[in-house]
């Protein structure tokens, strides 16, 4: 930690973990409901549990991104945040909006629009809050001593994420356009601008953790995010196949979304190549493990499992089944959950001065149990989903009869989810043991080639081997 104002990141990370824990509780409620134990139905019907589960997910990931940005931007621009006090205000506003929304979901106060259930009046608060965040980050970059590619890509991603929230707020008479523009938020977030954010964060982590030259890392960053947008924008078409949009979306969406895995493959190869290049001496091995973990799991969950149902011929039968839930879990956790954890694993030791996340056994176990748990959860969803597609969509069995036939796989899901949750608990234990951020300033420059042209981002052209 070089700058006092970076400390605000800790608050966002702590918030992230609290919200994640709550998300898991609601995940279990749904897992049990799918098994046939819906004892909470009167108080927390399935649609409430689901809205809470997915909205908490989005908020904790965003909170993690914001925390990471508040940590990175001062370091990249080499100055304090322009108005650290406002960052605390922005944090408080985020928490307040989140809490009101979550409570409201229990009282039928929402908009039934998947992933965007937050009711309209709160949408405006979200916009104000995010604008404040964008202002603080942007202002710091503007006034900063240097402008690095990493910080610009990160900023562009965050700014676009904020702007893309707006089309989701237009009120359409037609259900078609209600859906059409909902995907501008949901799809263009996770398969567009959030990947940009991911690229920026991974680049920062790789620069810090591998010590590879910044110029090389940032050049490949452009290539990876270039593939992302080239395929991801028109790839939105894979949500337009069957909602009433014209038939050409089958072709365009099919072709371009089938290319999307390339961006994730690129990210995975890039991460592994840079780690190799950096050699074996890492200042924080576990943070690098999480970083490579996110690069690889995002390829499997988003790239590979996304491809599995993205062609229109397949999607015709899998559209809106548990196959989608299988992909959704591994993609979200692999690409964005593990990314936030990677940021925490690197930044917390810097912030608190306690190196637990670098090498403690508990942290090591946290990685492996959560990763294996998530793979097993994906497997359980996959079996349930494929059985559903085969029995309901292909053989024409009644919906509820099929659901009863696949209840047993949700027992498997709950077991796997318990393993996953154990991993999260272990991570939280180390977060707790690490304590609050340091009071004073520590000028630590571990793991990066101290100073030097490469770190400052001046022109240092070098060919990649």
């Amino acid at each position: 930690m070089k700058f006092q104002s970076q400390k605000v990141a800790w608050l966002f990370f702590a918030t992230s973990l609290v919200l994640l824990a709550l998300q898991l509780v609601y995940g279990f409620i749904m897992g049990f409901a799918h098994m046939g134990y819906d004892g909470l139905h009167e108080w927390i019907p399935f649609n409430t549990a689901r809205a809470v589960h997915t909205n908490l997910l989005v908020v904790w990931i965003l909170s993690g991104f914001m925390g990471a940005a508040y940590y990175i931007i001062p370091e990249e621009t080499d100055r304090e945040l322009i108005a650290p006090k406002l960052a605390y205000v922005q944090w408080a506003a985020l928490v307040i909006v989140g809490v009101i929304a979550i409570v409201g979901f229990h009282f039928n106060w929402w908009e039934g629009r998947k992933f965007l259930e937050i009711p309209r009046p709160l949408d405006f608060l979200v916009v104000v809050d995010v604008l404040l965040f964008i202002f603080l980050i942007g202002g710091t970059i503007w006034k900063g001593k240097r402008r690095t590619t990493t910080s610009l890509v990160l900023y562009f991603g965050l700014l676009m994420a904020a702007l893309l929230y707006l089309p989701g707020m237009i009120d359409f008479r037609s259900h078609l356009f209600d859906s059409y523009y909902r995907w501008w938020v949901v799809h263009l977030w996770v398969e567009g601008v959030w990947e940009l954010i991911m690229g920026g964060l991974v680049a920062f982590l790789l620069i810090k953790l591998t010590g590879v030259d910044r110029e090389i890392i940032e050049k490949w960053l452009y290539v990876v995010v270039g593939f992302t947008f080239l395929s991801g924008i028109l790839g939105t078409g894979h949500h337009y196949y069957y909602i009433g949009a014209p038939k050409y979306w089958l072709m365009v969406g099919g072709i371009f979304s089938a290319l999307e895995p390339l961006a994730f493959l690129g990210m995975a190869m890039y991460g592994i190549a840079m780690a190799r290049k950096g050699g074996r001496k890492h200042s924080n091995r576990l943070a690098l493990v999480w970083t490579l973990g996110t690069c690889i799991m995002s390829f499997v969950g988003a790239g590979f499992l996304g491809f599995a149902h993205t062609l229109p011929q397949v999607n015709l039968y899998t559209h809106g089944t548990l196959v989608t839930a299988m992909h959704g879990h591994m993609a979200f956790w692999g690409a964005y959950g593990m990314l936030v954890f990677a940021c925490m694993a690197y930044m917390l030791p810097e912030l608190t001065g306690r190196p637990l996340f670098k090498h403690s056994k508990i942290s090591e176990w946290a990685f492996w149990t959560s990763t294996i748990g998530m793979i097993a959860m994906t497997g359980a969803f996959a079996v349930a989903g494929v059985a559903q597609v085969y029995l309901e969509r292909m053989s024409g069995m009644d919906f509820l009869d099929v659901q009863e036939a696949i209840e047993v796989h949700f027992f498997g899901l709950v077991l796997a989810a318990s393993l996953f949750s154990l991993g999260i608990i272990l991570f939280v234990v180390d977060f707790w043991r690490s304590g609050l951020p340091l009071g004073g300033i520590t000028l630590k420059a571990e793991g990066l080639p101290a100073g030097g042209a490469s770190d400052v981002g001046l022109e240092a052209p070098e060919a990649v081997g």
Partner: protein
Amino acid sequence: MLSKSAARAFFLGGTVLTGLVFIGMTVDTHRQAPARTNTAALTDEVKAGHVIWTENNCMGCHTLLGEGAYYAPELTKVISRRGKPWIRAFIKDPEAMFPGRRKMVKYDFTDEQIEHLLTFFEWIEGIDTNGFPADPPYKPVDGPVAAGSLALADAPEKFKALCVACHKVGGKGGIVGPALDDVRARYDRPALDRWIQDPQAVKPGTAMPKLPLSDPERAAIVDYLLGAQ
């Protein structure tokens, strides 16, 4: 070897190019929407149904056009699958229709609100969805209709409205309950009447619901099933 500025140009160029194509296709989608989604039929009632749909987050359990949650049936074709009279009876008291099974929220909708929902579903069903949901390719084909089967055409109106959603007669109808062509071989009049009047009382926990029928309506159905008509 690729330089950083070339990589940046690749990123910016690709983004701008595909972005422009995407916006062009969006404009065209708006242009084609009136024909594909029958905008002329998008009345205030349909809109009111849409509002009920979103305000209660039905999408948090169901899918519609394949979008939503995976806990409750896909509703794109629900009107032709179940028929309006059945849905009216169902929404008034979902648990009575499927006792002991997965639960839907019991909403206290007025009759008018239910009609709005139905017109909304009807409008949805009219959308050109490029073939979703597909006909199940491996669905067992109905065998030749056995001699002595009942003819659906002869059935009382209430039977067509409420029972066919779950039962087949003469090879036509739903698949939740067994085909009813041969009940007369297994039931006498009092047993059948008692069953239809209150299935739960006869067999607690059965998936057959108690349906809103007046005495004469029930008698007509019993007559029909026993072949007395």
